């Protein structure tokens, strides 16, 4: 177990910059999830940490060791791949011990580790089977077992659940969370699935276009996204956005207007934008209420209602043609074609400036 420190890390393939300066500190025993859309560089970052690719610039420290020039195995990491990457011609036991035999480990110690990992992951009955005789979930457990027996300082997971079906994904996710508590190891986990990110992470690193968009605890990211990208990426269905402009401001309030919105005022001390500055107001579907008389409100035509039971999602179109989703509780849902007024309380609004950065209102 160790801390992981990444400083000014850059990676370019030819002219294409994949990572543009990543700085990240990961605590000992922390579970950090890298999340972002495909192509954001999260897998590249993981491969650089693992040592499978070399960095163009910057440094990586595991504990106090600078590992830039070390081979993957010497970095004391273990990686679990999306495709499991089990050795197909070896049985489960050999899959787990194959790497250990090159470290000159005594047989007794190897056996002890395999037995322990097998017990933890319920693989005892499968030790003599080949990967092709295992189910997807079992294969992934073997892949995790192969990582555990190395007793690495940092565990790296590259989308480990993406190839599993939905039910198995949930149960394996729970197992990984338990495993993290049990081992107390530092773990870095890459996924594009925000449910995995939210449920597993101590801290989430949201990445976009080779840069870190925000680092924070799951609920912090959800309730105080630092920028438009994070606001739109975290949360499902996604946050609704309304472009607008600052109409005027006083010391204690700012008045805003937008194409789809009725003009409204927000209490805000020291609002940075001058009159005329463009802003974006974001509101999560769960915070929209039908028939709200709050300042922030707009009219929309309901186009579709998805009824899930405890909630329903109303897909509506605002006056300026933008699509809006509202989460409604209970049985009282509008019909298709209804024109409804949707609004949200001031404290549930997220305001972003012209550059897409969050503006704190109080």
């Amino acid at each position: 177990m160790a801390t992981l420190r990444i400083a000014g890390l850059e990676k370019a393939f030819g002219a294409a910059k994949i990572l543009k300066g990543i700085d990240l500190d990961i605590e000992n025993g922390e579970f950090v999830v890298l999340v972002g859309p495909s192509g954001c560089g999260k897998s590249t970052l993981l491969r650089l940490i693992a040592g499978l690719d070399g960095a163009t610039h910057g440094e990586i420290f595991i504990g106090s060791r600078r590992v830039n020039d070390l081979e993957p195995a010497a970095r004391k990491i273990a990686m679990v791949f999306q495709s499991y990457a089990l050795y197909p011609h070896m049985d489960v036991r050999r899959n787990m011990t194959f790497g250990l035999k090159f470290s000159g480990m005594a047989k007794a110690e190897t056996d002890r580790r395999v037995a322990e990992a097998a017990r933890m992951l319920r693989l005892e009955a499968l030790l003599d089977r080949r990967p092709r005789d295992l189910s997807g979930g079992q294969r992934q457990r073997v892949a995790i077992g192969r990582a555990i027996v190395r007793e690495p300082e940092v565990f790296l997971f590259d989308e480990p659940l993406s190839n599993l079906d939905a039910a198995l994904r949930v149960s394996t996710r729970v197992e990984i969370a338990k495993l993290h508590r049990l081992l107390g190891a530092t773990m870095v986990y890459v996924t594009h699935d925000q449910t995995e990110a939210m449920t597993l992470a101590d801290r989430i690193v949201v990445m976009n276009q080779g840069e870190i968009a925000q680092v924070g605890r799951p609920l912090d990211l959800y309730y105080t996204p630092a920028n438009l990208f994070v606001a739109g990426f975290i949360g499902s269905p996604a946050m609704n956005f309304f472009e607008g402009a600052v109409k005027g401001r006083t010391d204690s309030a700012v008045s805003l207007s937008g194409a789809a919105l009725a003009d409204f005022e927000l209490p805000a001390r020291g609002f940075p934008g001058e009159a005329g500055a463009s802003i974006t107001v974001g509101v999560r579907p769960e915070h929209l209420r039908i028939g709200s008389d709050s300042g922030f409100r707009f009219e929309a035509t309901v186009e579709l209602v998805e009824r899930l039971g405890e909630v329903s999602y109303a897909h509506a179109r605002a006056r300026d043609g933008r699509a809006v989703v509202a989460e409604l509780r209970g049985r009282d849902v509008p019909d298709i074609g209804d024109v409804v007024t949707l609004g949200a309380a001031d404290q549930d609004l997220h305001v972003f400036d012209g550059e897409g950065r969050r503006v704190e209102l109080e």
Partner: protein
Amino acid sequence: MPKPLSRAIVHAFLIAYSFVAVAPILLVVMNSFKARNAIFGAPLAPPDSQTFSLIGYAKVLRSAHVGSWFANSLIVTLSAMALTLLFGGMAAWALTEYRLRWTNALALYLSIGIMVPIRLGSIAILTMMRAAHLNDTLIALILVYIAQGLPMAIFILSEFIQQIPRDLRDAARCDGVPETRIFFEVIAPLLRPAIATVAVFTIVPIWNDLWFPLILTSSETTHTITLGVQQFLGQYITDWNSVLAALSLAIVPVVVIYVIFSRQLISGLTAGAVK
């Protein structure tokens, strides 16, 4: 065109081709069991109780050199095959796995080897072998056949190596497996179908080759079976019984080797590696 008809046509072609390919071999084997008169009297008739004779085989097996010719052929073929697979596999791995400055140029150079027949270099090879004091040795033959087989072996094996999932090599690296062991213990076992293919492609031309034994070996002790059989072909008298018997015998080892390797030509070995 209706399906059954097109299938019938395809099968007709395949049967015709099989006949063309097999008929001469069948003729050789058939006539090797016949007496000399019967070979000339009715070359297309199978041996019957009147014409059946093992005289060809008896003569061939009595001949002092046939055993050593067979041994030479086997030594040369199997050594050249083994070394072609070893070096070809390692070169294919290096060319596909490590992106070095000269990788592309090297791959191009090797692919030229596929296009240019090695026999064009016969004179240079002969001079080289003489200079190295290797003429009239089996080593000379083995070296030439490795050079002949390598380009194709590298080409085929590279294609197969590229199909092995990247994650598998990365996993082995994370596991601390040294590069050479990754090749021999992770990659090579997964290449078995490809290795069998290359082995068959390599063996047949070497076993059947007459040209290089003819120019590189001069004494009877270093002849291969294909060259040795020529001894039975005289300018005025040809001992057809012996020729046909020796040729029939020469077919056997290749067929055996082919059967052994064709069992390995089973795909789906990588099932369970990923996904």
